């Protein structure tokens, strides 16, 4: 059909972020989606349904979250997608996944917060994604900066959830999911999948708790989890160091804001400015080696985000306390940050 053909040229598609995410879930071998309508995540749900995949719309996000837990325990590659207030409710099920090491996968479309905020965009669910629930934040969190990464990192989210048994999040936002851009899917042809498997086998008589009688029991369990989580950090924590070789000022940003920063860095370098960008791709666990190595070389850091300091908090927590560097902030909660704003701010600094 004409319309379909016009969208595809040489394996490239002109496609929305939501559609990219759906395709990644399909290619990851996901078998089931539990969902509830909430802007700006609804299109991931309806896109999955349109692709004629198995799904259930539950009565709320709490039900969706626990259904995913049940599904993965049975060995099904299940996932969900939510946003804002739905993300808050999802912490209930996600916390159980954290406590029981379940390969729970979710796609989060950040919107303005707190409360109903806006239905549009923000980077204000970083702390909720990384450290939400009543646990210790032992979750894997990816933050894609462009449509290619929406695809690739969703694949990694599924793989690492099942490989390492930590609940995993693709943390994106309303702008990214609504952006239409050109994606060349042939780039991803060689990605492989980690298979799901039943966490309880028939006849096993497995006895599996998430509540412990004595403090020491939980303490021991958490120490084991921490060890495994550090192993995950060594193996998959990743960041991008962009033009950092001779940088004097370092931008730190993630997701879509990092893309604006990248463009800004490109423009500033043409003006001869010594500026670079450090971008965490895993927010959790963060590539702290790369962070410290990069920050050690610069005089000043500017942390840029669409929140009132959620990324900054994570960075400062992971940064080597011995490093003496000036940290400044460009914070616009719930609003996009434009390339020009970043360039102006840097020109005021330098």
């Amino acid at each position, binding site marked *: 059909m004409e319309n379909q053909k016009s969208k595809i040229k040489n394996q490239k598609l002109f496609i929305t972020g939501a559609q990219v995410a759906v395709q990644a879930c399909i290619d990851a071998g996901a078998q089931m989606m539990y969902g509830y309508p909430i802007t700006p995540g609804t299109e991931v749900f309806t896109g999955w349904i349109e692709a004629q995949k198995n799904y259930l719309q539950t009565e709320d996000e709490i039900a969706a979250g626990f259904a995913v837990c049940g599904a993965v325990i049975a060995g099904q590659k299940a996932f969900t997608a939510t946003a804002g207030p739905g993300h808050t409710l999802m912490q209930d099920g996600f916390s159980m996944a954290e406590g029981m090491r379940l390969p729970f996968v979710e796609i989060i479309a950040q919107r303005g917060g707190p409360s109903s905020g806006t239905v549009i965009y923000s980077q204000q669910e970083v702390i909720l994604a990384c450290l939400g629930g009543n646990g210790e934040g032992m979750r894997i969190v990816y933050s894609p900066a462009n449509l290619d990464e929406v695809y690739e990192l969703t694949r990694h989210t599924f793989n690492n959830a099942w490989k390492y048994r930590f609940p995993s999040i693709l943390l994106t936002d309303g702008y990214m999911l609504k952006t239409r851009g050109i994606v060349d899917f042939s780039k991803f042809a060689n990605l492989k999948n980690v298979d799901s498997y039943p966490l309880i086998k028939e006849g096993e008589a497995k006895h599996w708790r998430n509540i412990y009688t004595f403090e020491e029991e939980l303490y021991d369990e958490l120490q084991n989890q921490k060890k495994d989580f550090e192993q995950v950090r060594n193996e998959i924590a990743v960041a991008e160091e962009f033009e950092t070789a001779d940088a004097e000022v370092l931008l730190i940003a993630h997701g879509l804001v990092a893309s*604006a920063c990248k463009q800004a860095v490109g423009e500033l370098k043409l003006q001869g400015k010594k500026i670079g960008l450090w971008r965490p791709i895993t927010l959790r666990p963060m590539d702290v080696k790369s962070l410290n190595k990069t920050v050690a070389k610069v005089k000043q850091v500017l942390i840029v985000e669409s929140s009132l300091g959620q990324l900054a908090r994570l960075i400062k927590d992971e940064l080597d306390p011995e490093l003496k560097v000036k940290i400044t902030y460009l914070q616009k909660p719930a609003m996009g940050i434009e390339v020009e704003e970043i360039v102006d701010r840097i020109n005021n600094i330098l």
Partner: protein
Amino acid sequence: MLKILLAGDGGQGLQLISNIICESAFNKDLEVSHIPNYGLEQRGGVSLAFIKIDDKPIVYPKFSVADLLLILSDQSRQRVEQYNKKETMVLDVKDFKNILAENKIIPQSYNIFFLGMILKKLDEQNLVDMEYAKKYLENKLSNKFGWEENLRAFELGSGE
């Protein structure tokens, strides 16, 4: 790099024309990005479309200043003031009221009129093929109610 911002009320057919512009540029093997913006209401709010066309991969889909700005309604005019600077070329419906009235173009076809105008400019800069765009438009709308009106509006806007 060309930055186009389309602004109007929800229901004025902005997302349709932004689709046609994007698909036409994509067909020319150019890099294209599009991001819409709307409010809560299902009907009647302001609808925006940010479009970037470039020959290099597009890193970030939004922008602070538009090269080309289309304003289709009073409500949206205010909303997009910040994107309108001295370098912006503005197509404002209020400046075309006479031409539209003289040629009996109905409000439901205003979007198509301006689509014709914008595609003409893009065609001149070799960013789209007018023939392809016109065919794509036909595909989308010729089976729908009001096609003659839309076709007239398109031809007037594109100067055919």
